């Protein structure tokens, strides 16, 4: 990994970790995106419940669907972030 001390003192890029600053911001978003995905699933399940009056099952399935959607988004974003060229470390 290219360490901070490998650069001369005037030219050190500001890195908080192995990712670029914009990607750090995207990473902080991932938690809320997961929560909103689950909430959306719950909302969809609630709507199905009111439509078809299948008392808890709509919301339960909505929770699971939302959970799956959230995990899908999380894994896809993480993969994209770690595979991006500018994030790859020089070995």
């Amino acid at each position, binding site marked *: 990994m290219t360490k901070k001390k490998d650069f001369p003192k005037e030219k050190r890029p500001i890195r908080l970790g192995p990712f670029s600053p*914009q990607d750090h*911001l*995207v990473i902080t*978003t991932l938690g*809320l*995106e997961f929560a*909103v*995905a689950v909430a*959306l699933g719950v909302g969809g399940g609630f709507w199905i419940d009111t439509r078809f009056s299948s008392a808890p099952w709509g919301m339960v399935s909505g929770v699971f669907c939302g959970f799956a*959607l959230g995990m*899908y*988004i999380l894994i*896809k974003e993480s993969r994209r972030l770690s595979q991006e060229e500018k994030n790859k470390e020089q070995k």
Partner: protein
Amino acid sequence: MDVSHTIAHHILDHDFGVMLGGFHLPVTAHTLTMLGISIVLLAVAMLLSMKGKSLFARLMNTIGEEYVSFMRDGIVIPGIGKEGVAFLPYFCTLFLFILFSNLAGLIPQMKTITSNISVTGGLALCSGGLIVYAGIQAHGFWGFIKSFVPGGTPWWLIPLMFPLEVISLLIRVCVLAIRLFANMLSGHMVLLSLLLIIFIIGQMSKIAGVGAAFPAMGLEIFMTFLELLVAFLQAYVFTLLTSIYVGLVVHSH
């Protein structure tokens, strides 16, 4: 004292019920505040770009150019690339609008429009529209539709992946709105609650109320500074994330 009435008065929106020939015009307290903030923003922006040779005009021009340069080199070009300069006016306005709205909420009798889910939803919808518009401009309409499905997925996965990707874009836009709304709302609720603690305790006994004023005011001052920081931060995060999403859509190939 009626705590719920105070909270409702300060946090919730109040519709004035203006009707124009059967149409319910959305004239609310928050909407009027938004109009005032827009006028102030217009005045400030025209001040920053004033023409003239006096020292004040040159100072204003320098500040304006510095701001535009900050937006362009810090937010638009790292997110979208060189072709993003076409969208620079949108981002400049977005940042200043959210910033002014957040800061206006800290002024004692003013309302915080960004603690209204409708307002932040509207802003997020504008950013979502910009994302779709940039995608269509970069790839064409069918190219934009096709960019939702990553290259090289087997044909039987496409009916599953396409709705997931569309919902993913929808969730991104919703998260933009919810983040700003939740931060502003929670901040103002805490600010209000800390002051209400004094009055609630004061209702039980006046001396305890006066005694509770000191820690409550200390926390209140601390929370006000935190809210100041959060105001700037949330404006910056909203703008930067919009530019990142536009960049992801434009460079999706």
